[in-house]
């Protein structure tokens, strides 16, 4: 294989990566917009699902396969279902809507666009450090070692926190039933 050949292939792969990025970014961005615009709470949840899936795709592009899978399992498969569950338990009419006022909409849109503009300005004008990871294969064992090595204490704390949350959520949800009895 000649050097030129390799370069050509690298160019092509970059093109593919760009296309994929725009696809996933488009999915995420449009769905995020949908989350904001949609009046129906269940549809909002579906848009959020697409955002999450799009972000998972972005993780793939960022060489974070494991994170992508975690995103799908925990976010799309767990948290979001929990949210939809909450929607189903709390909405009186099947398509409950609470409309925001027009003033609020105007304020929200203007504030959001100002912040977005400011952020974009800041991002484009800042020179970030360049120190890319260059691994062709995703070092999943390295991730495990990092998680249980350098980040052992946060890991343990998070696990304790999860336990606390589990007990707390169960208590909160159960206390209600006792009251009703």
């Amino acid at each position, binding site marked *: 294989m000649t050097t030129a050949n390799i370069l050509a292939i690298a160019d092509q792969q970059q093109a593919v990566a760009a296309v994929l990025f725009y696809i996933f970014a488009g999915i995420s961005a449009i769905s995020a917009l949908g989350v904001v615009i949609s009046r129906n709470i269940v549809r909002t949840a579906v848009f959020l699902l697409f955002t999450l899936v799009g972000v998972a795709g972005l993780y793939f592009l960022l060489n974070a396969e494991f994170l992508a899978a975690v995103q799908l399992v925990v976010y799309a498969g767990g948290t979001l279902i929990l949210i939809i569950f909450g929607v189903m338990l709390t909405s009186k009419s099947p398509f409950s809507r609470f409309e925001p006022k027009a003033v*609020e909409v105007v*304020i*929200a849109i*203007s*504030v*959001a666009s*100002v*912040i977005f*503009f*400011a952020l974009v*300005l800041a991002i484009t*004008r800042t020179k970030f450090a360049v120190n890319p990871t260059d691994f062709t294969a995703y070092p999943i064992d390295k991730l495990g070692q990092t998680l249980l*090595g*350098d980040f*052992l*204490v946060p890991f343990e704390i998070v696990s304790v926190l999860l336990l606390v949350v589990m007990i707390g959520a169960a208590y909160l949800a159960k206390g209600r039933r006792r009251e009703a009895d």
Partner: protein
Amino acid sequence: MPTPALLLLIATLLPLASFTILLFIGKRMGTPLAGVLATLAIGGSFVCSMIALMVWLNPSGQYFDPSRQTMIEWGANKNPINLPYQWVPIGPGIQQDHPNFMDVGIYVDSLTIVMFSMITLVATLVHIFSIGYMREDPRFPRFFTYLGLFCFSMLGLVIGGTLLQLFIFWELVGLCSYLLIGFWYEKKSASNAAIKAFITNRVGDFGFLIGFGILFYHLGNVTLPKMWMLLGDAGFGHDITLASGVIFPAGLLTVMGVGLFFGAVGKSAQFPLHVWLPDAMEGPTPVSALIHAATMVAAGVYLVGRIFPILTPGAKLFVAITGVTTLTMAALIALAQTDIKKVLAYSTLSQLGYMILAMGLGSWIGGLFHLITHAFFKALLFLGSGSVIHAAHHEQELPQYGGLIRKIPVTGITFGVAVLAIAGFSIAGWGFSGFYSKDMILAHAGAFGYLAESSGKSSAYWLFFYLPTIIAYVTAFYMTRCWMLTFAGKPRNQHLYDHAREAPIMWAPLVALAVLSVIGGKYLGVSELLQSGIRESTQYCRAVVPKFDGFGTAWPAEATTTTEGAEPTAAASSDIMEKGHELMHHCVGWAWLVGIGLGVIIYWNGYSIAGPLTKFPPVNYVRIWLYRRMYFDELYFSVFVAIVMALSWLSATFDKYIIDGIVNGVGGLVKRTAFLAGWNDRYVVDGAVNGVATLSQELGAAVRAPQTGRIRMYVTVLMVAIGLGLAGAIIVTLSR
């Protein structure tokens, strides 16, 4: 051949397993089964400890060597097992075993092995006893759950190789003590006692934390032998220069030692934190036997034994004073108590005082030896009292007993054996277990006195000998009183007497402990093993620090230097020891006979002699003073309450005179001004007042308005603010 470390680790984890199992399915297992499971687990620990002991004593693996006269050769002279492991990554400390890591570890030497054998043995017997004692209790499985956790924590405390581990298990042990004292939490007194024990222990633990903090700041979390090596010169009482060049000042060393010792003060219930232990007798009696007599309260002595080489002379003096105060005070109080368990509780305090005193005087072996023998006979005493209480249907007052020997003979005899043991029974140089250990302590105290004299110290140092000596007489007396009132004489409560009977399952532990109380001093080789423990640890440390002699520092004589490689000494030179021993022999040789004889004579027939005696007013006042426990509870209550009251009185006074005065003065001023100005002015004043009121109302309304309770509005305001700020930033950036 499994290593002792692995065996002891298994022995530690078995009770944890029993705890976990019982925690989840204990209730389902029901009354006898849960107890049997817990007993099997701790019994397994006992077996493991015994095997570890065998392995430890015989590195060759031959237990019965026919060529030798003795079955086992005491003291294997082997290296202690010291295994530090990296645990939590932290920043670098100065002298850690593993840089950048908080270590946990295992440290096994002869002391560890002795402690393991004693704890698992007593715990096993107490478990067996409890199966009988707690049979009717509805929370039977939970009791054994707690016991499992306690055994795990206690064994973990003993096997732990770093002070951090010691502290963790220290707290766990305290938790178990809390749970078990308050086991019958329906009783207000029990739950109060539990809270009292917990809080009092916290006070001690603060001291521990302070001491540990000082140590941690200088060394990081190091293993025990490393700590000894680095700070082994503390006994000389001068500054220590660490390898990194940091200087550890002597004063700070003393503060650290006293702080660490304060943890022991709390846990071993030494003066002034002793108040919780008598109240802890509200817990079930097996718990009192296991935790509040034999093992947990001894943990304080164990801790002092572990930090012994890093105690400065000042800290040791503090330790000794604490010990001697406690032992005197507690023995006197025990004279007047009428609750059988309270008598035993104060006796425990007194004996713990002996151990702490021994530590303070530099008799490492004496203190720990007494710990072991005391564990045997005090566990026996408590289990015996448990048997009595069980037989008497939970009546604990001595005046209600009498003559029970005819109804519960086994208990009575074994109890008597324990009384003899604690009194120091001996004939012609042979005695029960308590004789040997107390002998060692008092002989050392005598030697200490001579040493102090010869090095020109104050003669007040002789108090460290004479007070314990007197108390030795007192001990024999009050223990005899307890026995006589319970078992001898005529029954004073006929109904109770008629219904008293023993439960056979409780016999086995009593008899086993009685045998141990008799032979524990001479034939089990505890002191020889402890002696070899010193030798092992010293040799281990000398491999790195050739002049290490942390366990042998003889104070108050001014130690100059230690000769390199000399045999470690537990005390002063042998001739002074000999003198001390002789003095002790003259003073207390027949103390047991005097005390017991006096007790038998006075209490021969119940209160018939003692009763009239206490009618005599001075005696009666002393009796009441002692019966009320020297008013320590009242003292603490009044002191702390008085402080709070004084503070509140202070703030009330401030309120009343200064603030009220200002307000009233202003009010009067206004009133007078108004009065003087007449009704014309009233409009002005009214207008001003109303104006102020209106103003504040308007202001309040204005401030209240944004507090809508609408989250979204808050978010919106926040975001608008940020947006405005960012907009400004954008304009600035773009215009540049």
